[in-house]
């Protein structure tokens, strides 16, 4: 289980994540939602150890991650929000490099990489430079790199970004399959429809603070709203979207 307790992050006095506490359990897909700038990616980076917390503790299976960050990172698979990759390498070279950095057995990993490249329809382009890849292809490289070592904790920050419909459907099923096999999956996305179909629980963040942490079913019942989109609008958007849209239209016509 991944647990965050009173996690806070400040940047030069500005609070990006404010006293966030929640847990993500094995076998469950936890959706981590929030509008732009609400602190989702910052939380993800703190969980990966790329960023330090200003306050609070993050633990995985009862152990604070900072106690043995290396051991924790070995069990972690991460798909970042932006597909930053070394574009002078080919897709295959990049994945081999990641497997080597993770010290995976070369022969078995080569077979695994080959298989994953085929399943993600990248095999034909494996020798091409990443600079030639489309956004979706880059996203697939990130997904393969994150899953290559069979991690126990999977952090997915906007994993559907750039994927075509077919690949998106495969990924959706894959996330469910991985959770069913006992992985802890924390999944951040703006695609609420996908989140509603995939996640069993959601944590909603607004201006760095948690405004909801429950199962989607319970939230629907409690708030008496039929969809996650409406729940999200009421909890995190807190704006009259129709009125703002009208104002924008008025302003550009003025």
């Amino acid at each position: 289980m991944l647990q965050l307790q009173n996690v806070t992050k400040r940047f030069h006095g500005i609070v990006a994540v404010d006293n966030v506490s929640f847990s993500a359990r094995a076998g469950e897909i936890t959706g981590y939602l929030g509008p732009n700038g609400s602190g989702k990616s910052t939380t993800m980076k703190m969980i990966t150890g790329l960023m330090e917390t200003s306050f609070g503790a993050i633990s995985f299976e009862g152990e604070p991650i900072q106690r043995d960050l290396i051991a924790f990172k070995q069990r972690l698979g991460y798909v970042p929000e932006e597909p930053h990759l070394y574009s002078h390498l080919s897709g295959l070279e990049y994945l081999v490099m990641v497997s080597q950095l993770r010290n995976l057995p070369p022969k078995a990993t080569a077979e695994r990489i080959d298989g994953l490249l085929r399943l993600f329809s990248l095999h034909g382009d494996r020798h091409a430079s990443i600079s030639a890849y489309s956004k979706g292809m880059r996203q697939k490289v990130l997904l393969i790199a994150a899953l290559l070592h069979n991690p126990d904790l999977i952090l997915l920050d906007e994993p559907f970004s750039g994927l075509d419909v077919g690949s998106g459907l495969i990924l959706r099923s894959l996330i469910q399959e991985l959770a069913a096999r006992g992985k802890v999956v924390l999944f951040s996305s703006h695609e609420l429809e996908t989140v509603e179909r995939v996640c069993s629980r959601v944590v909603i963040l607004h201006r760095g603070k948690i405004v909801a942490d429950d199962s989607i079913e319970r939230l629907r019942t409690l708030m008496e709203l039929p969809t996650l989109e409406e729940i999200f609008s009421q909890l995190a958007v807190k704006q009259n979207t129709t009125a703002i849209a009208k104002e924008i239209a008025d302003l550009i016509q003025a």
Partner: protein
Amino acid sequence: MNKLQFYVLHRQFLFRVVDAELLSESAKGDASKLMGQFAALLIFFSTVVGLTGLLADQRNMRPAAILAMDWTVEHFLIQTTMLVVGLLGVLSWDTTFLDLRDVLVLGPLPVRRSTLFLAKVAAVATALGAAVVALHVFAGLTWPPVFMPAHSGVFGLARSFAAYWITMVGAGVFVLCLMLGVQGLAALLPRPQFLRVSGLIQTTAFCLVLSGYFLEPTVVRPQDFTAPGNQQLLSWPPSYWFLGLFNFLNGTAQPALASMARRAIVGLLIGVLGAGAAFLFSYVRTLHKIVEEPDITPGVRGGRWLPRFGDPPLTAIVQFSIRTLFRSRQHRLILSFFLGLAFTIVILYVKTPLAQRSLLDASGTNPWHQVNVPLLVSSIVMMWFAVIGTRVAFAMPTELRANWIFRMTDFRRLPDYVKATRRSLFALTVAPVWMIWAGVLLWLWPWRLAPGHLIVLGLLGTILVEACLYGFHKIPFTCSYLPGKANVYYLFLAYGTLTVYLLDRAARLEQSALQSTPRYTAVLLVMSALAILVRWRTMVLSRSEGAELRFEEEEPPAVLELGLHRDGAPMIGPIAAGAREETSKYRNWSF
């Protein structure tokens, strides 16, 4: 042309002459600091040259000596202007054309192509113009009075100033036009071919500019121009054309220089018109091609295999280093700079009386087929600059934001990363340089003596690698770059150049040691001990407390902690719980 659009674009393009994305977080992506450093370097140079202008006293000199001195300084200043503009042109090579990002951002906006084109050319010209001004800010004030014709009064002084600045700007414009023209012509090729050829042309231009500067004669005398043997040779380098132009404008033209002045004017006109046409034509074509054919350099078929360099993580880092250095144009250019410098030093050294005498002293018919000092020095200089150049390239990041994968997988201790960097340096510098020299020396020298020097060269490479690794707690190409620290490299470079004389002495020592077994053994022992010592020093530092793998270069703190401790509690920072009670005892004391 919309003036506002032009100003906005000009400003944007001007500050993108340097890639701000590779700068450290501490530099806040501010390229102006780096540009300021370049400017400071040029102004410093100008100050030194300017001071010599103030001190120049020609009163007791013969007219022939005055002429030779004036021409030498004039030629030196013109040559340096062309070098600076040429180097900046090469370094800002990729910014001359719009890239895919520019086209995608600016394409949908209602901006005319002509505005984009002019703003881009103006930005490059402004950057290069600023460099010329910085280079002559002091020299351009103190030298024109020295160059003015005798007894020509205020008019002569004004004319000398005008001639000076027109010539320097003209020389800069000529080099700029040459660069733009070559790029413009290359851009007429299909886009994938252009992307492949562009890097090659850039590196070639870089080598030409650098070697041209160092290989041209440093002293210019009237008799050099009249000597029949020199006519062909001196009519080609453009720096002599502009020497002629300056003297023509200054009213000090000699018959020997008249044809040179003509060449300068014709060259400048052809350069401006030709480059303008080629560049404009290719620019219009390129805008289409950038969108239709994205900025992808075609992959190299074959040659992808690389050997293992230890366990998988070590192999990953070494292979990443090798691939990056071979595929990144920017990093290749840094290495080319150092290798070009090494070649120049070697050529200059071989031309010195010191080296010539050592060749003459050699017994036998062909001195190159014996152990000789010039070859010993050459191999040492090449090894020296290859290692230093690669180490400097390692410190410059590539796609900085992609380094998250290394930060996510930093499972090893720091000494393991130092080991990986060491192997990268060996694989990229010591091994290839050593093998090249092994081929050369085993072919030229007796079989018994060549291996002797190759062992010494290997030990020298080891010492240099270890010296370069001291404090380098980074994975190559993954740590941000902080402008300001580069001064260290300039110093290193200066020391490297000064050391050539010492290298000559060391090479002579080695030459004599190779003839005597006890002396050779002593040399090997000393070098081995030094290699062990520097390696031990590097490893101790990497294992020391607080040493960690860095991905972000940081400025040194503005306030330094002196490390004065009382009762085990630091004076600065939070007071340890035990010491807090101790401290509280003194709170009631009054002084």
